[in-house]
């Protein structure tokens, strides 16, 4: 897949199977576009303690 200056497809969740277009290097607007889900907060992912706000440590 070529990277076009405005190109939504590479980051779209439907890209692997999408039947809407073969020109997946030129899509700048699409009603079906879905971004992959937000990353979970890192603290949740690796189960570490969340940093305390810096002002509290002063």
């Amino acid at each position, binding site marked *: 897949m070529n*990277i*076009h*200056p*405005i*190109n*939504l497809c*590479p*980051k779209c969740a*439907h890209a692997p*199977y*999408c*039947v*809407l*277009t073969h*020109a997946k290097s*030129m*899509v*700048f*607007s*699409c*009603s*079906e*576009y*879905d*971004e*992959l*889900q*937000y*990353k*979970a*907060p*890192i*603290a949740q992912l690796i189960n570490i303690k*969340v*940093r305390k706000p810096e002002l509290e440590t002063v």
Partner: protein
Amino acid sequence: MINGQIVEKPKPVKRGMLDNVLEQFNNAADSINLNPNVRKILSITNTEIIIHFPVRMDSGEVEIFTGYRVQHNNALGPYKGGLRYHPTVDIDAARALAMWMTWKTSLAGLPYGGAKGGIQIDPSKYSKTELERITRRFTYALGENIGPEHDIPAPDVNTNDQTMAWIADTYMSTKNTSERSKNQHVVTGKPVGSGGLEGRDRATGYGVFLTIKFWAEKNNETLAGKTFIVQGFGNVGYWAAHFLENAGAKMVGVQDAFGSVQNKEGITVEDLFNYGKANNGSIVGFPEATALDGKNFFGLDCDICIPAALGNQITAQNAASIKATLVAEGANGPTDVEGEKILLERGITIIPDIMCNSGGVIGSYFEWLQNRNGELWQMDEILEKLEKKLLATFKKVSDYSEENSVDMRTAAFAIAISRIEKAYILRGIFP
């Protein structure tokens, strides 16, 4: 420099990515014999802002992000246009899309200019709390480069009502306590409970339906019994289909990212919508329809074809096979230049995207007005106002098209650009 940020010297808009935007402008400018000085002004952007700003991540590390805001023209009023979060956001993309917004707001008869912007970012790599901090820091960095009477952003790719709520809250928080509530309309597309507009979700789709209805009325036809196909079953396609079905039309084909389905006897819009919801958004396998090869979708037998998903769908390859007599462009740029030529030669009417899908930006204008006037409008009056506004635009475009023997797209661009030209001629160029 504006408020300490770098403001690039305006450059001519580059050809390449969105050739259609410039080509359509130049064609329309030639056809109306546009004042050469106004042509010079409209060929470039007014202001281009690039901001590099730091944000602390959940890990404690600091990342630097790059945000853009391009303001193309404000002859008719404050700049208006979306903010997108995507890795491909850059200054060239923002330029072309900002220019497009100028024509769209002008044609719709709104007191707005055109802008576009965003952050070069892959949102899937960040948590929601990180995205909130990124949004708020970008808003703070933009400072007075946006504002309710200056430049009013809206949702776009990967931004939504939540993003707009964060921007509004951050912007309002930078104002004096007594001034804060006067600045809520710094963005549109906010959540309904936080200054947003009732019915904003259906504004674009309802607009698509209305332009089809106006076309039928103009041709002394009725929508009852008409058949239609729709590409894209998201907010635009679904709502357009919903209102068409209510008017008595019959949906006979649908295509989404997963596949295509058809039924000559008709597909019930709500049934398909509910099926999709229960199947991770996919319409494939809907029991009241049969599957169809995507290549043959636009060749389905129907009266009305609604490409409401993405660009470059009707091309030289499939335009000759289209059986509809009307193409209503719910998406942006669904018909390419060669495809359009074939459709027009075959006598097929095209309701151009710049008018057909303008219900969304008109809805944004209503939200802005509602906030500005301290009012809360009900759904029925919003849909009524939208119909009145779109009808005025449709009549202008239709009349111009007939009087000048040009297609509706050429007419729409001519009207949009003429309106801006008139503003410049009346007020002159300072000093």
